[in-house]
């Protein structure tokens, strides 16, 4: 357990030292939000209706950049292999990296919300449930995403491979997060929020444990 904390501290420090990249990823997300509105046109009604969808699409696209970057630091001087050979347990290394990525993506999501509210004139709804959903949704992206990032960073053409592997997998996260977010923003007449939230929680638990099990095999040469 302590190794997981050591790994988490290492990844948090790693992300803090490379925070310049986070700003770039945030700008990418904000740009995506803007581009969506150009694609739909200036009518406030249409934009407001799809605001949740655009938020999560922008977040998904931006998160593949963030996830793809998260392993560059590890691969530069075979630093990750250096840790694995100590031996540091791959499970600890995985959860350290996955939790750090989760925090980064959640921060990214929260930072994008004001943009969405302004651009799409979308009612933010309850701040707390919105943040809760962002946490659940970004967890669903981060756990499998971290595993796939560890795989694809070791291969050329990883920028295309990571989304290619990740997006079909996280279809349930997108469906649940978008539906739940729009329910939070525009009211929930038939009380479906609970079932969407439950689905997100299940997805997160399943992939947090499954990816933790399989990560060791991915980093072993």
């Amino acid at each position: 357990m302590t190794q997981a904390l050591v790994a988490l501290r290492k990844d948090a420090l790693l992300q803090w030292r490379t925070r310049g990249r986070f700003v770039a990823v945030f700008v990418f997300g904000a740009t995506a939000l803007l581009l969506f509105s150009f694609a739909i046109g200036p009518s406030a009604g249409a934009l407001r209706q799809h605001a949740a969808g655009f938020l999560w699409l922008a977040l998904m696209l931006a998160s593949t950049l963030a996830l793809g970057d998260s392993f560059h630091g590890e691969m530069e001087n075979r630093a990750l292999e250096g840790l694995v050979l100590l031996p540091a347990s791959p499970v600890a290394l995985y959860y350290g990296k996955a939790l750090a990525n989760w925090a980064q993506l959640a921060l990214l999501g929260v930072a994008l919300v004001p943009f969405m509210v302004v651009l799409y004139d979308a009612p933010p709804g309850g701040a707390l449930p919105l943040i809760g959903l962002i946490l659940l949704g970004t967890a669903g992206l981060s756990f499998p995403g971290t595993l796939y990032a560890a795989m694809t960073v070791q291969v050329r053409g990883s920028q295309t491979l990571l989304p290619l592997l990740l997006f079909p997998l996280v279809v349930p996260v997108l469906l649940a997060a978008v539906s739940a977010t729009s329910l939070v923003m525009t009211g929930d007449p038939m009380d479906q929020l609970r079932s969407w939230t439950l689905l997100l929680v299940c997805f997160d638990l399943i992939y947090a444990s499954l990816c933790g099990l399989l990560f060791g095999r991915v980093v072993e040469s």
Partner: protein
Amino acid sequence: MATAVMDTKTSDTSTPYMVAGAGLLLLVVGSYWGLAYAPRETYMGDVQRIMYVHVPTAWNAMLAFTFAFGCAIASLIRGGYRWDTRLEASMEVGVVLSTLLCIQGAIWAKPTWGVWWDWDPRLTTTAVLVLAFSGIIALRSFVDDPGRRAVWSAVAAIIAYVDVPIVYFSVKWWNSLHQMQSTPETVSKAFHWPLRINAIGILLLMWGLIALRARIAALRLERQLQPPPEAA
């Protein structure tokens, strides 16, 4: 470890061909029966006949991916390349069958619902499945090292397969908001025979194709793995 690449039944190459041939034969018989002899369905009319090829394809596509899931687990646990070649084969056959399934589904939806794609949970899940496993096949082509390719695609196949039920439920809930649940293919007793024949037909065809495709993978692997020149 590298030598345990070839399947045991490599010498006799005719079995897969015979199995596949038998499958094709059954398919012709079942289809002919479904098209010519089976009675018209009361509401759906003749469009119903698409079911005799659509439902068997659905069963077998799911079977192919389930077999791939088994191969992935075996490949991770047992090591060696025998299960890896079968994983590669069953994933490719699974993708081909699922793609065919989507095409059939679209052709069936047009006369029935007036749109080519009616977001039926089963079909939408199949479409996601096609994308997920095509991504894994792409991953295999990106990775040159055979050992790593075997482990990583097995890991990805397990992750993708576990996702199938979750995708199905999420699409089902998401879809139920828009329109009432599309009528499942109600197949009454009289129509069962062409369905079963075609199902077995596609099963045999699939089995033969997977066996052959696994051998292709094994032969390629053998060439790639050229054992180092024997020390003098």
